[in-house]
């Protein structure tokens, strides 16, 4: 009896959003999408009951935007569990450990979908429980504990229950969008979260809950003299304009990364194809430069976070940590191996000339070099790892080309031959793309971006928006309002 037979009764009973039984008009698709989006923004503002907001710590830090999580809200976990579950399933499926034939067997397809949902629930628990019960990331409001009379542990379970509910809600919101809306929920929530931060970085005001003024408001205040920066063309004025109050560097970095990503999105290698039966018929198979998307960065960042986590554990366990291993101040490494291995999150971590870093310049430069090397080489290595493990490499691509009846001109119509030719393109493109994504992520962190969104998040947002644009522009244009039709050409 295989695991499939054992798990089938549970997996086939996982609740699912009903599929539409006929074509959905585009206006209704937009309405579903807008409705779910409003619900998402609403839920990111429903704060966890029982949480001490004054001591709340940013658990994911800069990663929260890519996970579309609302810090301290019921959507604290964001799409993290869904993405993690999908990654785990893809890797297991790619290594053929599941034994599911999702292409041809309808029963396996249903089992796969049920398994994915079950894994998301497991991931919600695996991510949520340590967040609430360990590390004091989500501190409990003691007053709530006293007034309810359930103790700290009781309130912690209450917080976890709310997070669990939020995680389940986002899972079904994603499914609603995938079946009844435009694009995918995951993509939509990432774009929504990052766009919110970008707009916030430009326009926020202390009166509407922002911690400081947005860039545009700061410029207006600088222009009206409310923020004194001195003469613009003096060194102090330029420094203030570029690095501190003016945040021009952030604006330039964001625009530059945006431009590079838009360009890189369209860079591809086109593999020429011909048809075995029709002489003169020509086809193309495009391989995109950013072939593995931002997935390599998720792995690299996870490794970096785990190294830092190890440092904290060692520091807590060992009475005195050797100086070569790590010197800590205010819970952050300021020297030793763990300092050099810590990723750079913002310009303050390295801009010694602005008084940001207190370490000697050579140490700062060494840390920058290590971060850069780690991200670029890690990006390339994990891109190859993903492509090879999750069925995107030359072998499976060759199979896809062969089964479509095409062949590579000048070569025999044989899977092995096609694979040999593809081996000249796909690994190289994957390595280059992975390294480029790593470089962009480091650049964004080092120079700073509007609203503090990372390079990985910006890259993902641009890619998703471009795809959504394509989907809207190409597919359902006929049903659109004349204004929208004009907008999409």
């Amino acid at each position, binding site marked *: 009896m295989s695991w499939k037979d054992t798990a089938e009764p549970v997996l086939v009973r996982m609740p699912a959003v009903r599929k539409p039984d006929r074509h959905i008009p585009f206006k209704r698709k937009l309405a579903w999408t807008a409705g779910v989006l409003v619900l998402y923004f609403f839920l990111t503002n429903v704060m966890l009951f029982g949480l001490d907001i004054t001591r709340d710590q940013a658990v994911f830090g800069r990663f929260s935007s890519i996970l579309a999580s609302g810090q301290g809200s019921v959507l604290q976990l964001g799409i993290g569990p869904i993405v993690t579950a999908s990654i785990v399933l893809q890797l297991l499926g790619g290594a053929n450990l599941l034994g599911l034939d999702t292409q041809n067997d309808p029963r396996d397809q249903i089992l796969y979908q049920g398994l994915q949902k079950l894994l998301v629930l497991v991931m919600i628990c695996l991510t949520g429980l340590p967040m609430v019960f360990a590390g004091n990331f989500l501190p409990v409001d003691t007053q709530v504990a006293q007034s309810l009379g359930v103790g700290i542990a009781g309130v912690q379970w209450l917080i976890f229950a709310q997070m669990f509910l939020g995680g389940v809600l986002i899972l079904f919101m994603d499914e609603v969008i995938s079946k009844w809306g435009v694009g995918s929920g995951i993509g939509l929530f990432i774009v929504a979260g990052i766009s919110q931060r970008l707009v916030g970085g430009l326009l926020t005001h202390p009166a509407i809950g922002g911690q400081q003024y947005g860039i545009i408001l700061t410029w207006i205040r600088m222009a009206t003299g409310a923020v004194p920066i001195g003469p613009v063309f003096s060194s102090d004025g330029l420094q203030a304009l570029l690095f501190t109050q003016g945040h021009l560097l952030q604006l330039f970095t964001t625009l530059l990364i945006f431009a590079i990503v838009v360009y890189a999105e369209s860079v591809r290698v086109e593999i020429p194809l011909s048809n075995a039966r029709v002489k003169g018929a020509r086809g193309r198979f495009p391989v995109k430069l950013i072939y593995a998307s931002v997935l390599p960065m998720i792995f690299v960042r996870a490794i970096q976070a785990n190294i830092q986590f190890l440092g904290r554990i060692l520091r807590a366990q060992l009475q005195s940590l050797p100086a070569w291993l790590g010197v800590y101040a205010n819970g952050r490494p300021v020297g030793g191996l763990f300092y050099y291995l810590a990723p750079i999150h913002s310009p303050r971590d390295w801009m010694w000339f602005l008084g940001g870093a207190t370490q000697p310049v050579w140490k700062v430069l060494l840390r920058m070099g290590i971060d850069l090397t780690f991200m670029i080489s890690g990006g390339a290595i994990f891109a190859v790892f993903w492509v090879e493990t999750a069925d995107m490499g030359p072998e499976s691509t060759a199979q896809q*080309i062969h089964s479509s009846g095409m062949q590579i001109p000048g070569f025999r119509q044989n899977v092995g031959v096609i694979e*040999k030719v593809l081996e000249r393109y796909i690994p190289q493109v994957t390595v280059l793309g992975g390294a480029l994504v790593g470089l962009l992520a480091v650049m964004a962190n080092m120079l700073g971006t509007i609203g503090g969104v990372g390079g990985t998040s910006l890259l993902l947002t641009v890619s998703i928006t471009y795809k959504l644009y394509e989907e809207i522009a190409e597919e359902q244009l006929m049903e659109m309002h004349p204004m929208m039709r004009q907008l999409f050409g």
Partner: protein
Amino acid sequence: MPSSRSHLQSPVSIVVFSIGVCFLVLGAFGVLADTHPAISVSGWGLYADRNLEVIGVLTGGVALLGESVLIPAGCDTPPTLDCQTVYMAEPLQEMLLSLAAEAEPDTVSFGLAVTPAGNLASGTNVPDQTPVFSDVYLPEEPNSVSSVFGIDLSTPPQRTQGRFISHPRSGLEVTKRDDLHEVVFVAVPPWHDASIAAFDRAGRRHRLETVDATAVPDVPEPVNI
């Protein structure tokens, strides 16, 4: 359409440029008011005035830069497709019809790209610059990246000007269920030359002419197999 632009065309650029001019004028007026004793009104302080001028120049510059960078100057390249007559290479048509026939009763949907007639292998009687549909892009299949993000991020945006769709069960027309494109080719059984037609996005029919020309195949460099 001219390929060079002598003035701002995008409404956004015009608004941004106007804001820049306003800042510059305000700054200049402020400087004048602060420095010229004959003017009774005072400005916003010399530093603020100069900053306003700088912001004005920068904003105007951004508008001009945006106009020249973000809006491609060559909107008309590749050449605009003839709205009345659409040309397709004969081998491509033959291949598409055979692929559609093989896939029946399922539908197929392929992106199609054009090549200028002058670049095709054999001589044709259409002008050299006329775009002729000559290439098919293999359809996007779900992969592991699209499974994680729910959206296909590993396939590049295709530089296609048309799309071929088969209708094994419905008529020779564009329906609301179809993937639309600048030019939509619809084919129906029995998959003969007469059972394919070209339409625009709104479903208006184009005249379709097949060109007896073969595209020169790009052959990759030989590899040791």
